[in-house]
């Protein structure tokens, strides 16, 4: 974690040499930790853990949002229905497709942007702002804009036909083959600035001395990136990977605004399905079951990711 381990080790060793005074100090540390971390933990428990538990309990009932009949316990019935529903499997497939494509591309592009912005060339501020502007815009507005752009007689097709005459315009959002790629491009466009900022803050923790030392050894350009920059970004890398993955798996807003899961279930995702069954169809129990399955899915994926990235260390 820290770049300077030998010094830290020395400090720790130094501390262990101190006798019984540590017990009291430890207890005080525990108390301090309690009031420092307490508020955050309490808030998280109150506003995330409690609703989650509620939601998961509902998953085993047939609760409906609006119903005169009280909810009854139905055990695994919701799950049985869910796993035999082809729309669910299409949702899982699409969600993974989206994540597998978006995570490396968005993380990579964000890093490229961060490096570009960090370069010692004039205009850094301006470009950093410009790349960040899509993030600032709400996804609802972005979805509306891109809907215009993706229309068959919209700008994207117009641009392509300028470069490639004789091109038959594609109806991007209406073709089951192109709908998801279209959503992918738009999502990356909107979110990459966000992760650029995170990469940037990671880049800025790299001490200048490292670069200077590398310079003296003749490490420039690609070598510099590979041997100095990249290894120092390990912590940032892991963090970005986790957050992009979770965000990608939670794909919802753009689907809801632009394609409603279509055409032909080519863009439906797990979260979209949960919201649709929960809010539109008012089947709260079923929607909670979907949420529970989603939670388990993401846990597994994150676990696998952590495992894979831990191996490399």
């Amino acid at each position, binding site marked *: 974690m820290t770049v300077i381990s030998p010094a830290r080790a020395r400090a720790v060793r130094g501390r262990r040499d101190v006798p019984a005074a540590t017990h009291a100090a430890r207890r005080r540390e525990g108390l301090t930790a309690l009031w420092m971390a307490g508020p955050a933990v309490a808030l*998280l428990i109150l506003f995330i853990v409690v609703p989650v538990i509620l939601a998961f309990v509902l998953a085993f009932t047939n609760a409906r949002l609006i119903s005169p009949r009280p909810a009854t316990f139905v055990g695994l019935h919701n799950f049985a229905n869910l796993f035999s529903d082809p729309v669910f499997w299409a949702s899982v497939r699409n969600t993974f497709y989206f994540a597998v494509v978006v995570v490396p591309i968005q993380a990579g592009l964000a890093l490229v942007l961060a490096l570009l912005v960090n370069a010692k060339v004039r205009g850094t501020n301006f470009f950093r702002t410009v790349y960040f502007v899509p993030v600032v815009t709400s996804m609802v507005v972005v979805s509306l*804009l891109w809907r215009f752009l993706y229309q068959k007689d919209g700008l994207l*097709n117009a641009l392509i036909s300028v470069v490639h005459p004789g091109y038959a315009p594609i109806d991007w959002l209406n073709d089951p083959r192109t709908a998801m790629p279209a959503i992918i491009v738009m999502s990356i*466009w909107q979110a990459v600035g966000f992760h650029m900022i995170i990469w940037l803050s990671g880049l800025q923790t790299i001490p200048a001395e490292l670069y200077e030392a590398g310079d*003296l050894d003749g490490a420039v350009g690609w070598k510099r990136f590979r041997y100095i920059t990249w290894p120092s970004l390990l912590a940032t890398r892991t963090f970005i990977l986790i957050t992009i993955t979770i965000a990608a798996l939670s794909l919802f807003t753009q689907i809801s605004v632009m394609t409603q899961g279509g055409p032909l279930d080519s863009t439906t995702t797990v979260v979209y399905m949960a919201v649709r069954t929960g809010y539109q169809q008012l089947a709260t129990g079923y929607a909670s079951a979907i949420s529970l399955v989603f939670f388990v899915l993401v846990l597994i994926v994150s676990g696998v990711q952590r495992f894979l990235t831990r191996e490399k260390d």
Partner: protein
Amino acid sequence: MTTVVENPPRAGRSARRRRTSWLVQTGRILLALLFAGPLLFLFVSSLKPDLQIFADLRSWRAFVPLGHVSFANYSAVFARVPFARFLMNSIGISLVTVALGLLVNSLAAFALARLQWRGKQLVLTGIIATLILPFETLALPLVWWVNKLPWLTMNGFHLQLTTGWLDTYQVQIIPFVANAFSVYLFYQYFTSIPKELDEAARMDGAGWFRIYRNVVMPLSGPAIATVAILTFLPAWNSYLWPLMVVQSEELRPVMLGIQYFFQLNVSWGQVMAYASMITLPVLALFLAFQKAFIGSIASSGVKG
């Protein structure tokens, strides 16, 4: 930033540097066009009447304010919607969420990064686990739950206990103050700050809170700026939650307002104008925070 090196500058190196910077600049400009394009379309369309927006859609005219341009859409927005009120609400709610969040989350991250205590790893994992569930899946149980929570209000001169947080400001703020994302960002940043500094402050007799306040936080400029921006945005853009819990018009935030324009006859020009107006304040804020970003980097000569 350049080292004072004894070697004479070689012609090759500066030529390469010039070429690199030319490449970098071109790349940046092309990308900038790509990123700014759709938003330019947004701003330009907000100046046009509805029919013209659609007529211009398929050509370069979509990016250019030609034709019947005016600010008519903007004045219509103000006439139709209490925009100033919505704006104040959003600004207030977002700023308070960010301020409280910075405090609460950085404290927690500090406790996790610096202090040794039992259950630390468990708490850290638990906090990260809360990142997993997207908000949409929690929203309904949360509505039911916040309706059961008590709150103190001023009634005249005495405090009164009321139940239910629906239709208030606090329901739009408090559930979002603690944020695993922020905690983790601070945590990552704190662990990269050398512990020697703690030891030094210790020797001057500082307790943990002092270390937090005087040593660690001042060095965390970039982290603070990052967390501030990255938590302001979801607060500003929040739509589903206020939709469900806010009923009175006086308490509505800015995102709900966009729906006012989606009537049977959608006035797209006004939608664009409204969208432009809610994007600009956030951009301005980002620009302001950027200065802090750069400022803290330049001033913190402490790394290593």
